[in-house]
């Protein structure tokens, strides 16, 4: 079923972070805690759904030569809406994520899907694609954040997992930890795929 296929691909086969290697900047920056990862993921999914939907809706009226400024205007509008809504209803999350939400505008996943998919496909499928990619992005964020938060802070989603004697690996919470984790996860997934293809 086409709908299922368009959705599932964003989760694993064409995962925007681990396969398409898009949006790595916010992934590295916001994956230091699972709470931040969820907030960022939710905001990105919302923007992705809206921008994919709108771009697809007006795709026949966008001249190719000015498509990039139009995409950016659409994306920036939705990101600003997310920022305003967050500042009003989720002030604590807004304080910790505020700067990175603004960066969603230049998140390559959103611009990438607008260019590669929603400017060329029907609205419904574009929204499904956005949903799959957004959830795939959020899953990637959660996986990396899980490693970084457990090893670097001894907690998961803020819940302390180990006793007071646990010495966290501070490096994991800082930038090097982000690079190391994402490197290992991508390496593992590549190895896993390689083994799968050998068996067949």
């Amino acid at each position, binding site marked *: 079923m086409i709908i299922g296929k368009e959705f599932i691909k964003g989760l694993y086969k064409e995962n925007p972070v681990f396969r398409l290697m898009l949006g790595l900047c916010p992934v590295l920056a916001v994956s230091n805690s699972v709470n931040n990862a969820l907030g960022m993921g939710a905001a990105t999914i919302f923007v992705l759904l809206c921008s994919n939907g709108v771009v697809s809706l007006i795709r026949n009226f966008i*001249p190719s030569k*000015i498509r990039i400024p139009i995409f950016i205007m659409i994306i920036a509008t939705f990101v600003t809406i997310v920022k*305003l809504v967050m*500042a009003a209803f989720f002030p604590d999350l807004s304080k910790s994520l505020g700067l990175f939400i603004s960066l969603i505008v230049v998140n390559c996943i959103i611009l990438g899907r607008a260019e590669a998919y929603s400017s060329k496909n029907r609205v419904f499928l574009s929204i499904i694609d956005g949903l799959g990619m957004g959830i795939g992005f959020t899953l990637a964020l959660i996986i990396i954040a899980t490693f970084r938060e457990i090893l670097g802070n001894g907690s998961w989603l803020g819940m302390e997992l180990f006793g007071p004697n646990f010495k966290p690996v501070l490096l994991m919470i800082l930038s090097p930890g982000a690079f190391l984790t994402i490197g290992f996860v991508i390496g593992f997934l590549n190895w896993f795929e390689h083994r799968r293809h050998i068996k067949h």
Partner: protein
Amino acid sequence: MKDILRFGAILTIVALVASGALAWVNKITRPIILYQQEMAFKSGLYAVLPGSDNGVIEPVLEDGQTIYYRGYGDTLKTRFLGYAFSTLAKGYSSKIQTLIGMDSSGAIISIKILFQEETPGLGTKCEEIRSGETIPWWQAQFAGKKINGVSVDKDGGQIESITGATITSRAITDGITDRAATMIAKIGITLNNSF
């Protein structure tokens, strides 16, 4: 030529629709955001005047504007805690709003930075809370210092400036000192120089 006109028209239409949508969302969220800021200010006042949440915080007005606050530990206003006022300093990349709680002898009780948008990882360290602690370490060093005697170590003072964020540190510290000078005059405190 015809293309340029067409492109211009399409871009204008997109821009108009986008701005319209944003103006509408802004209209709805603005009162709520203002309310959030008021709440943050109020809880900031309780933080820089510990004990005032059980008592009363009284604004002192001049020409219809609140210039500072008086805090009491009880609702009958018998236990005076101190004064509170805010300053707006020009930081490195943003205006930094700080609340200061001061006792009647001119010593800082505590400060709380309410708003800043300094460089992430550098200037933002002014609000960083180390794991296991409850208040930002950089702001904690202001407690107990004489209100007109705070300056960063680079200017010969006692406040340790944030590594890589001297401008931010200096802006906040100098902002406190500048505002304090006006406030002390208005409140009418004579500073005891034997600290």
